[in-house]
Every structure is written in C-alpha cells, then in structure tokens.
C-alpha cells in the first residue's frame, strides 16, 4: 500500500469505517512508514484534544419549556405513540438471545434496559455507591443480591468505573455498574443467566441507544449507552478480557 492510499484511508481507518482487509493494509503500512506514523500520531492527538472540548448541556429552563410543550399535545401524542409502538413491536427482529425464562423475550428486556438507563440519567439516580475503587463497589453489593457480580475497573482501557447501584430488570434485582467514556455514560446490567453458560455478543439499537448483550461464565450482561456501537464493542471486549 502506498503513502497516498494510506493518506486517503487514514481517517476512515481511525474512525473504524474501513473493512478488515483495508484496515490490515493501513496498519501494516503505518508500522513500517515513519512519515505516515507521524501523521497517524497527529490525528490521534487531535482526536484526544477535540474530545476534551466543552460539552454544552441543555439549560434547565429549556428542558422545562420542552416538557411543557410536549404535555400540551399529550392526548394526540398518546394515540400516535401507540401506533409507533406497534411499528416497533413488528420491526424488532425475532431470534434474539433470551434473558432468563424462555418466555421473556430479549427485545422486551432490551426495552427495559434502555428504560432503566434513561431513568438513571434523568432522575439523577446513577449511583447508590459512587466510587472509582472496585474494592468499594464490589462489597457494596454483598447482602443486597443473591449473587456476586464481577466488578472490574477498565480505566486503563479508557472506560473508568464510576459507581454502581441496584436496579430491576426482567422482574428481578440486578447489579448496575456505571462506566464512563468521555461525556458518555455506560450502564452494565449483570445478573445470573438461566440457560447457556456463554453466548456471543448480540447487538441492537433501541431509541437511539446502542445495546450489547452477552453471557459469560453463567452471568448475563447488558451494556447500554449512547456511545457509538464501535466503542461500545471495544468496551465489551475490554470487559470480557478482564
């Protein structure tokens, strides 16, 4: 691969938009070419700097005004929302991984997981225990759950642990672990899995949130965030490798 081609593909490579073969070609070239490696490093520095740029949160008065407007059109909206829900139910694919009971479908759980995620952010109830120290977070769950959730800090992979709380998903108490990536929050819901000891990742998107579900060592994991699916995948890989 020539420097010109690498220059053309470098952004797509860094943004994880290249296919596997092209990614390998870029990686191989960058390994041996000092000039491209410098450009690569500049791009990475820039990306880090830009991600540190201010994040402007919506002012409370704006949120209040929007809420007032939306409740004005409440009755009309309710009818429309039912129609939209019907579309959602029809469009969610079959064949998703089951949670615990065979009757409990994955898409129902996915919707519950997203609801819990949104609630935790909106109601300002993200933590019962706020700590970046896993030796504080892990014991906190003792006696509150009939299982011991695996708690790891992934700060070295760029996903620091920030706390945990008790939540309810699928009609049972689960451990919710909270991780951070820049300004994005990741909630991970952990509970014992009923059936398979391990499954592969199942990816889905609900209402603009990305979800990843997998079972590992008999524990069921649901990771949910507004983080893009590539970075959420990176997070899951880091968590599974720990």
């Amino acid at each position, binding site marked *: 691969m020539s420097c010109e081609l690498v220059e053309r593909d470098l952004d797509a490579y860094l943004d994880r938009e290249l296919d596997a073969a092209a990614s390998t070609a870029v990686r191989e070239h960058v390994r041996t070419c000092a000039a491209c490696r410098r450009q690569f490093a500049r791009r990475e520095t820039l990306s880090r700097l830009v991600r540190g*740029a201010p994040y402007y949160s919506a002012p409370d008065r704006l949120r209040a005004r929007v809420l007032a407007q939306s409740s004005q059109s409440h009755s009309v909206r309710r009818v429309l929302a039912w129609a939209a829900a019907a579309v959602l139910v029809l469009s969610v694919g079959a064949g998703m991984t089951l949670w615990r009971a065979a009757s409990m479908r994955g898409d129902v759980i996915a919707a519950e997981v997203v609801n819990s995620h949104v609630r935790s952010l909106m109601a300002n109830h993200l933590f019962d225990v706020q700590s970046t120290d896993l030796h504080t977070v892990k014991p906190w769950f003792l006696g509150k759950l009939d299982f011991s959730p695996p708690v790891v800090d992934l700060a070295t992979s760029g996903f620091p642990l920030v706390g945990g709380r008790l939540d309810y998903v699928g009609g049972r108490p689960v451990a919710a672990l909270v991780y951070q990536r820049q300004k994005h929050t990741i909630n991970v819901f952990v509970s014992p899995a009923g059936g398979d000891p391990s499954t592969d990742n199942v990816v889905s998107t609900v209402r603009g949130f990305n979800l990843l579900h997998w079972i590992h060592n008999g524990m069921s994991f649901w990771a949910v965030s507004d983080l893009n699916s590539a970075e959420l995948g990176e997070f899951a890989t880091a968590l599974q490798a720990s």
Partner: protein
Amino acid sequence: MRPRLFEETVLPHLDAAFNYARWLTRNDTDAEDVVQDACVRAIRFFSSLRNDDARAWLFTIVRNAWYSRVSRKANVAEGTRLNDGQDEWPDNALDPEERLLQQHTIALVRAALEQLPVDFREVIVLREIEGLSYKEIAEVAGVPVGTVMSRLARARERLQTILKLNAPRETLR
C-alpha cells in the same frame, strides 16, 4: 410493551441536541432557540419516527431548524465570536499548574473549532464528540458519505494546522 412517549424517546437526547446546536450557532441564546424550534417540530412529527435511532433523527431536525433560521436571517456569514470562557471542564484531580495548562488547551481547541467553517465544524462535532458513524452524519447533514469523508479529512487537516500539530515541534500534547 408500553407506548413510546416523546419524554422517554426524544428528551433523553436533549443535551446532545443542545450541544450540537451550540456548536452550530456558537452562542447559548441562538442554540436555545434552535433546540426549542426543533422540539416543537419533533413533537409534531413524533409519529414519523419509524426507526429506533431517535438521536440521529433529533439531530436532523435540529439541523433543519438551525438552517431555516440562518436562511431567514440571511446571516450565514461566519463571525469569529468567541466565548466567555465559563463552560470549561477543569479536572480537580490535577495540581493548579496542570489545571491551568489544561484550561488553556481547552480554550485553544474551542477557539480552533469555532473558527472552522460550519460544515467542517459540524462533522467534527458529530463524529468526535457524538460518535456518529459516517452514514449517520451523511443522513443528518443531507450529503453523500463521500462528502462526509472529505469534509472530515479537510477539517482535521485545518485543525492540525491551527493547533500547530503539523509543526515539527508540537506545542500541544
């Protein structure tokens, strides 16, 4: 399954919508007006949200609301208005000197972003800060994926120049 409500579906993305509008307009008052307009439209057209990607859907509406405002005002000219410097994110774990350095860097990055043409600034914010894919950015901005790619590459080159990352001795780390 419970019905999807505007409050549950769209409102969780209000911060993201405001952040996007704030970078488009570069000031708080205009950003608030744009997001307010956008939410009125989003409430009205909520039933047209067919797919599950409420965030990208809301971004598209924010962009349309912003665009109709600037074309109404016929004021697409790019000012260089800078910010009052209130919204920085100092990290309290750093010592005072490091914190000052970090604030300085944040101010430089913000000034660099604000002097980019809005088409460039937009792709940077949607990609780097909001983490949208090329396809999603193309849908929000209403341009082909190829245009997103070339804008991103040119925007990054320009930022590297403004921030002096292309100089032999790099000043920002």
